[in-house]
């Protein structure tokens, strides 16, 4: 079999596609194994990938262009659409970048509520991801459970913010409204159910012989690769790096909360799964802490100038936050007018799905490719925006 694979010259495979030995195959955009809407252009030899090209742009809406012609307040509803499974990070960062440029301090309670919002959406996003991860390795049962539990979390969001997916809760200047009466109790119930689910996932998925066989050693990220590829978040933590923006550059009230950075050392798909699985426990603990410590009265929203003709002083800033996928950042440039000059969104999937995946996919079986993709936790809409 060995001689089937193309020779490697200068670190690159050399082969002729027309030689009948190799095949070009498109994987996606219309493919159940592809998260979101992207496609992989594969050159395969047998069932092994020898070259992978990522194609994105199926979800390009031109957000950065649209924001240039919308008032600041009018950008607020559109930013959450950049990342569908976890919109709140976008909302928070956009609002925070605006507040940073304007020099506005938001009320203390708004900070707690924003943190709660971020953590809850982190939990929902991870639940969705773990369903994809298990589904990609053929374990539909776990996907059924996690999607249902994600829905329970979304019910909490719906009651709190008025919408399931796009909460549009973190508005520039603060938050939109308080927790409803009795929400804490229902939240605790849902969180307890998720906690129980996580314990079971340990049995069904992480200790599953098949999952272990397929995921261990798949798509290994070494610590040297991390900076070279701009790898962030759980993908960086899976190879032993203690990097978490919530600890390194605490924003909102993360410095008042007690949690640890979960790491693994192997750097493969399995350890990435474990890191995220552990992080969900952290997230649950954080939500419980917030609910226990949160101030129950106080202002929710700082007074802004009239949003209809709000102008932001000239300047530029960069704000980052730790999303489920790693560093999410907003670079906002204001030219002193009522419209943003430029808002650049740095989605963590950008580097993971483009440069990193293309290199990690080489040598992987086609059957494992969806698993590898999901284990990098990429969401295409934040790549092309």
């Amino acid at each position, binding site marked *: 079999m060995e001689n089937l694979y193309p020779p490697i010259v200068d670190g690159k495979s050399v082969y002729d596609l027309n030689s009948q030995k190799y095949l070009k195959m498109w994987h996606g955009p219309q493919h159940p194994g592809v998260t979101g809407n992207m496609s992989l252009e594969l050159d395969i030899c047998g069932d092994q990938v020898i070259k992978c090209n990522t194609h994105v*742009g199926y979800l390009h809406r031109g957000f950065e262009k649209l924001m240039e012609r919308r008032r600041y307040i009018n950008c607020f509803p559109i930013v959450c659409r950049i990342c569908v499974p976890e919109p709140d990070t976008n909302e928070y960062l956009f609002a925070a970048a605006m507040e940073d440029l304007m020099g506005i301090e938001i009320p203390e309670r708004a900070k707690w509520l924003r943190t709660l919002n971020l953590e809850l959406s982190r939990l929902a996003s991870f639940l969705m991801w773990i369903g994809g991860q298990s589904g990609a390795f053929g374990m539909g049962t776990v996907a059924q459970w996690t999607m249902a539990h994600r829905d329970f979390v979304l019910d909490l969001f719906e009651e709190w913010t008025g919408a399931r997916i796009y909460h549009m809760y973190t508005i520039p200047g603060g938050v939109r409204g308080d927790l409803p009466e009795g929400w804490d109790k229902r939240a605790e119930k849902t969180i307890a159910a998720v906690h129980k689910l996580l314990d079971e996932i340990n049995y069904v998925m992480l200790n599953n012989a098949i999952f272990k066989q397929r995921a261990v050693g798949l798509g290994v990220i070494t610590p040297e690769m991390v900076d070279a590829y701009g790898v962030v978040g759980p993908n960086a933590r899976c190879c032993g790096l203690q990097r978490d923006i919530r600890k390194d550059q605490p924003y909102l009230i993360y410095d008042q909360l007690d949690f640890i950075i979960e790491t693994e050392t192997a750097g493969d798909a399995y350890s990435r799964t474990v890191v995220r699985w552990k992080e969900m426990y952290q997230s649950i603990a954080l939500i419980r802490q917030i609910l226990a410590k949160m101030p129950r009265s106080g202002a929710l929203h700082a007074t802004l100038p009239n949003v209809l003709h709000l102008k932001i002083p000239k*300047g530029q800033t*960069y704000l980052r936050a730790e999303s489920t996928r790693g560093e999410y950042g907003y*670079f906002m*440039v204001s030219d002193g007018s009522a419209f943003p000059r430029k808002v650049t969104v740095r989605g963590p999937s950008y580097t993971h799905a*483009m440069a*990193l995946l293309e290199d990690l996919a080489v040598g992987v079986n086609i059957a494992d490719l969806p698993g590898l993709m999901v284990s990098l936790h990429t969401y295409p809409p934040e790549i*092309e925006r």
Partner: protein
Amino acid sequence: MKKLYDILSLQFELADFESKRSDLAFCKVKASQAISLLTHLRDIHGYTHLVMLTCVDWLEDKQFQLTYLLHNYATKTDLGILVFIDRDHPVMDSLHHLWKQGRVYQRELHEMFGIDFPGSPGVEEPMILEGWQGPPPMRRDFDTKAYSDETYSHRPRVQNEPEQHMKEQLYSED
């Protein structure tokens, strides 16, 4: 950050140091020195993480502002390197050899702003758009609404301004 700036300015022609926060600063550098400055920052000063590379179109000044944002995990600080290049002939040195994801950023900038990065692999290939025939869409002089109105059809709609409407209704003969 200011200290670092002072050290760097011994070697490079830097200008316009702006400290935004204690952990974020921006400074300007000449286009010809940018890549060597980035290499220097990465290898000597620990700015190992290329957070992003983006472009701001200053149409009025006929300039593109390329922003290379670097992060130092040890000191937990960010340094934004601003490079201004001519808008009519936008060419910039490539950094694909420093960071693997650099070529992706450059490919996107080539497509969205029409900036050329000679030597960057695949920079000419379209990344996001397919069959795009207009000007690079993220440039300020591209009007997305006009393009959209021209290319796609919307439902017809009439917008009444309250002030105008009341004038017509209540005191038009004055």
